[in-house]
């Protein structure tokens, strides 16, 4: 561990404080002492310690009371209690109140070393956990939202600025653009990141199921409700709730939702106790909510309640420059997942992808890459590995000649430039095929 572990020794006996100080200094720790609980609590107001070693029996405030106050300070310090009067009772009380361990004075040198070693290990683990959490969050938010395009940079800027607030967010965008990833990035960058992000796909549930899903239910509320169940709003307490396909909810649910958003309280289905929950709401839709409001399908008051901030995720065809980055990301993701060596994608295949309109957006691109890695046997993903059938050659061809050129190249690639097989597939003779290759200046990749 880079930083020295700091220890606070709290004991009313000089000799104990001196001995422990000397012992810990020899072990390379940073040590400070307090002769009573009051002094210790004063020190804790402005100094963080990794370990607090405190005597239980002290004049004035005793160690157990001090332990409670230390815990109330919500410090991360590990507290070890020591006493000359070993009773199981005090040990149990100390442990129940959150002490890490308990040791009886005088202790065996090895017991003390062992105890401090364990506490140090715990501190290392907690610090490592904290570092990893930060790394994972950083990776999640950076890795998931990929793009160098202006459109995507704008989205990332919006995510960053909105994350720290508690404002409701509506994420709009075509299907498959990564709206849920944007919601995850907002949550991961917010102060609620250590609490849950609860997702609900409103479109997949009927009204009554959605009601029970969101608000929870009491045992016996309806047939099949054999247990009390927490709702998603309850689960999202201190965290974020993500309501996908918000445009699909019924008028009755819109009223219920509005009420919950206004009061942050609700009652479980079949229950009568009001439950409060502190959540942030993020919604997503691929439909134009404003139009739905005009048509009277979506409540205007709910729309304004939800639409404090609107983030529009651009479709893939509007950020073509991100395709190579996305391809690399998905290749890495699936090759690792399938335990295959990392492959690359042929330039012609990339160009073809860049020319495609991607009605299914990133989800479609992801599926294409996954498929290509599953069926591909070479070190490179070629155009033939991508599922571009005749019906897909639409956006890049603007003339019959273009179409013929692209189609012949596609079939040639499919048969690895075997002229006989390609000619047979195209139902032309080999001479005609050679003439076409010459005419369009076709070359193997």
């Amino acid at each position: 561990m880079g930083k020295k572990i700091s220890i606070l020794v709290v004991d009313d006996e000089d000799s104990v404080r001196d001995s422990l100080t000397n012992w810990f200094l020899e072990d390379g720790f940073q040590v400070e002492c307090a002769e009573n609980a009051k002094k210790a609590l004063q020190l804790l107001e402005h100094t963080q310690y990794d370990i607090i070693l405190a005597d239980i029996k002290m004049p004035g405030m005793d160690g157990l009371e001090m332990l409670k106050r230390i815990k109330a300070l919500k410090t991360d310090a590990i507290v070890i209690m020591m006493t000359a009067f070993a009773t199981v009772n005090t040990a149990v009380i100390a442990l129940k109140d959150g002490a890490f361990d308990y040791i009886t004075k005088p202790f065996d040198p090895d017991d003390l070393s062992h105890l401090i070693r364990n506490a140090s290990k715990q501190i290392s683990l907690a610090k490592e956990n904290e570092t990893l959490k930060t790394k994972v969050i950083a990776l999640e938010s950076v890795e998931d939202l990929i793009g160098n395009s202006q459109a995507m940079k704008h989205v990332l800027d919006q995510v960053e600025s909105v994350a720290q607030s508690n404002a409701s967010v509506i994420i709009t965008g075509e299907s498959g653009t990564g709206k849920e990833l944007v919601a995850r990035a907002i949550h991961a960058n917010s102060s609620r990141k250590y609490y849950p992000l609860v997702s609900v796909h409103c479109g997949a549930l009927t009204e009554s199921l959605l009601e029970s899903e969101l608000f929870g239910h009491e045992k016996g509320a309806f047939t099949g409700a054999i247990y009390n169940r927490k709702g998603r709003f309850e689960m999202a307490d201190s965290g974020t709730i993500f309501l996908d396909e918000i445009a699909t909810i019924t008028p009755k649910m819109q009223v219920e939702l509005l009420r919950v958003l206004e009061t942050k309280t609700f009652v479980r289905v079949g229950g009568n106790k009001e439950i409060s929950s502190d959540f942030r709401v993020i919604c997503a839709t691929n439909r134009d909510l404003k139009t739905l409001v005009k048509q009277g399908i979506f409540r205007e008051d709910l729309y304004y309640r939800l639409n404090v901030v609107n983030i529009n995720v651009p479709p893939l065809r509007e950020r073509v420059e991100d395709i190579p980055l996305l391809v690399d990301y998905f290749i890495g993701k699936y090759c690792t997942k399938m335990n295959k060596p990392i492959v690359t994608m042929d330039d012609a295949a990339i160009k073809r992808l860049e020319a495609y309109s991607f009605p299914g957006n990133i989800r479609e691109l992801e599926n294409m890459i996954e498929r290509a890695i599953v069926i591909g046997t070479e070190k490179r993903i070629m155009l033939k590995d991508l599922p571009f059938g005749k019906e897909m050659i639409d956006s890049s061809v603007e003339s019959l000649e273009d179409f013929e050129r692209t189609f012949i190249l596609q079939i040639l690639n499919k048969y690895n430039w075997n002229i006989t097989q390609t000619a047979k597939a195209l139902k032309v003779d080999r001479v005609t095929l050679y003439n076409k290759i010459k005419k369009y200046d076709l070359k193997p990749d």
Partner: protein
Amino acid sequence: MINQTITLTAFGYFGKSFLDKVAEAVKYEFPFPVRIIESHVDLAEYFDPSRRQYDGNKLLKSVNKLARQDTGKTIGLFDVDLYIPILTYIFGQAILNGETGIASTYRLSNEHYGLEPDHELLLQRFTKVVIHELGHAFGLIHCTTPTCVMRPSTYVEDIDQKGLHFCQQCKGKL
């Protein structure tokens, strides 16, 4: 490291050759003159009847007072059972970056553990404790290198497992 003398002050009964060998090993580890002197304290003052042991903290303070601090580091050598209030026993202790330390043979002898006497092993153990405490007096903290003499030892077996010398890293810090 400034030039200073290391003094081994015997407060109990130790054979001359025993002390000479300890001094020789100490001299090998530290580039300073090592001298052996004999001294006396009334151990009864340090005895705790309830624990049947001698207070290491008080002894350390007395050794510190007796030592001629301008001459360098002093280790008081004892043959009684040492304790400090918080621990059941100690093999020795020193003031980190201080002038003095203490060490005792009491818990280092095989006889203490019901085993056959082994004079050579006792000498080795005691020498390790003396060098270890001197290391602290010179500002060294505990080391994790298994063979380094600055590795902490809470059992006599731990002392047997480590070496008689400083590791390169600790040597560099001296």
